[in-house]
């Protein structure tokens, strides 16, 4: 026990040692938390009225970001499979960084759900057996289970492996491999369940599409590799000694060069179905892509997102372009922004517009929602930076018992 406590103390100490750049980065992220904390204080005391959500548009930026981040968490499986199943040594060296990303993304997801609740003080009502979880009826109850389960899996696997490495011992396979296998299926389940959350609602025709879950997974497997490529680039650029092998990025590029075109194809399928059928249910798609009755807030965003997705797809499928670092990083950034817009605000908001009784009420996040979202993103980046820094120190043998 004392050894285990010392392990945590050592990691804690390690998280405070670093270069000036490290301190600057961590400092900036911490500073970004502050306005969000203040805004959340206001939200707690006044209610969700400080957001721009209303009865007609009852979910907004919080749920949009949540949806995107579930995808980021699920994308970790793209490193887990080659590392543990196909035994790629280059991927095995960094698979912990993928699992830690999944863990941090999951933390952010839970925070986004928490800030969206009207009565967060009653959170214990959703704890299985203690509260009254409406399982298996409610898909949100399923989501509570799969998201928290995935959080635990991605806490246990890297946690166990790091502790063993720290002690210089060989990890026991049966203490982590079964969980690795479960986590592969679990990764698919978290994004499927999150898609079913929306697609299971008959009263929202825009969401009521069986393409939702496949689109979620494919877009996650497009934006996920893009984010990982950027993270690995930053590690190679700023970490004093640790280097991610180039072959890992190559693998991720290959994956994204398949998933990005499929993502566009699925988007096209949806657009065709909506506009060619031209039933009364086209109204939400019309609002998103063309504007409805003079309301067109989302139109420029969705077309920018589509342009970003097309450009990044072209970069990823063209060998001359993707082999140049600057083009590659640009493509990754565009892909992340494009998919974040498309499956975040571009998916959640049109589901509410027009409302079931035909009202058109537009939504843009309030300043408080903006700061709270920013703070949660900063918190995610902060935890990822700190945890992966400590993990790298252990993996490379600098931090040991």
């Amino acid at each position, binding site marked *: 026990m004392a050894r285990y406590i010392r392990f945590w103390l050592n990691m804690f100490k390690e998280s405070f040692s670093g270069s000036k750049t490290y301190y600057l980065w961590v400092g900036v992220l911490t500073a970004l938390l502050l306005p969000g904390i203040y805004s959340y204080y206001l939200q707690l005391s006044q209610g969700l009225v400080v*957001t721009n959500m209303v009865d007609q548009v009852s979910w907004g930026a919080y749920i949009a970001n949540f949806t995107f981040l579930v995808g980021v968490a699920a994308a970790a499986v793209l490193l887990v499979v080659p590392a543990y199943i196909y035994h790629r040594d280059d991927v095995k060296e960094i698979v912990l960084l993928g699992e830690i990303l999944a863990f941090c993304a999951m933390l952010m997801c839970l925070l986004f759900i928490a800030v969206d*609740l009207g009565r967060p*003080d009653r959170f214990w009502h*959703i704890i299985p057996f203690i509260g009254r979880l409406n399982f298996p009826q409610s898909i949100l109850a399923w989501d509570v289970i799969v998201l928290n389960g995935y959080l635990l899996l991605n806490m246990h696997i890297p946690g166990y492996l790091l502790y063993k490495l720290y002690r210089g011992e060989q990890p026991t396979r049966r203490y982590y491999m079964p969980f690795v296998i479960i986590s592969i299926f679990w990764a698919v389940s978290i994004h499927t369940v999150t898609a079913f959350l929306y697609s299971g609602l008959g009263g929202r025709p825009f969401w009521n599409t069986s393409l939702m879950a496949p689109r979620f997974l494919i877009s996650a497997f497009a934006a996920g590799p893009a984010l990982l490529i950027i993270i690995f680039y930053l590690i190679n650029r700023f970490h004093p000694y640790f280097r991610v092998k180039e072959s890992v990025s190559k693998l991720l590029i290959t994956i994204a060069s398949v998933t990005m075109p499929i993502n566009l194809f699925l988007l096209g399928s949806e657009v065709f179905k909506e506009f060619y059928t031209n039933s009364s249910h086209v109204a939400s798609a019309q609002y998103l892509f063309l504007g409805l009755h003079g309301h067109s807030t989302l139109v420029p965003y969705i077309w920018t997102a589509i342009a970003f997705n097309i450009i990044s797809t072209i970069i990823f499928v063209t060998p001359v372009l993707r082999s140049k670092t600057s083009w590659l990083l640009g493509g990754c950034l565009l892909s992340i922004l494009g998919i974040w817009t498309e499956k975040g605000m571009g998916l959640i908001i049109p589901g509410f517009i*027009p409302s079931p009784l035909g009202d058109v009420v537009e939504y843009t996040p309030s300043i408080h929602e903006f700061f709270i979202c920013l703070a949660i993103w900063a918190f995610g980046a902060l935890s990822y930076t700190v945890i992966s820094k400590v993990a790298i120190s252990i993996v490379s043998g600098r931090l040991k018992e």
Partner: protein
Amino acid sequence: MSENRTKEQSTNRSLEHRLSEKSGQLLNQKVKRRSFLKGAVAAGAAAVAPMGTASAFSFESFFQKHYREMTPEDKKKVFARIQRELKKEYEIEVSISDPAPISGVKFVYALNLSKCNGSRKCVTACQQENNLPADMAYITVLEMPRGTMNVEKGNRYYKGESVPKEGNYYLPVQCNHCENSPCTKVCPIEATWKEKDGIVVVDYDWCIGCRYCMAACPYEARHFNFKKPKLDASTINTSQSYLSNRVRSKGVMEKCTFCLQRTREGSYPACLEACPTGARKFGNIYDPESEVSQILKQKSVFVLKEEINTVPQFFYYFD
């Protein structure tokens, strides 16, 4: 348990009532072990309790059970607490009733669209009866152009002075108390459910405010307290019930309850009584002689969004 259930089905009403009370107590004994676990989460929860609410954080309300797990003694305590809080905040004496569904009764609403003139008298009567702030209403009256039944073509923002307007008809929409209710299905914590008499209710003290039910409802029948409802102490209806018109807190859902505080005691809902044209009909569908049963037999009634298969218990007709 299973023996209890079979007995319950075969015995008369009063016994059924007693038995269901008894099984409720059994359930409570079962859940007692939970209170031990609850201690562990209490400390953390105190930190996230909303600040600035009327009543400061109390362990009593924090650990309050789900309505359906409460014993009669629990209820007494909870109702007393609600009365205390309202007294403190608004300086009013309220009564908190808890009328149970009457067995052999299932409520159904029928609305004659040929008669409705769009006066919105139902809307204001509902707000008054159910302690709603001015900016919230359970009934949305749509001004519909003649020639369409598509509610998405309605206008809810019409001016109220010169109704009815030529070329329009008026379609009031409120909770449909669906047989196949999507709102109760999606609630992650069973904070909303359908009672035996068909009424869909919310336990305001259990709801966590995730608003999933709102996304699921195809009739915009569910409303969220984005802020603390602003009520005038002098106009608060002091005759309140736990599952319906008591004063709500911020951060929870609420909706039309067919005025169960009135209808379960044998009165009509407030919206019906306020209707100047007699367009609204309400009653027990299990009684073949009731007005609603006759209407359902004789008129070509229809429901909203039938294709979603929510099976509404709110019917419309023209005559």
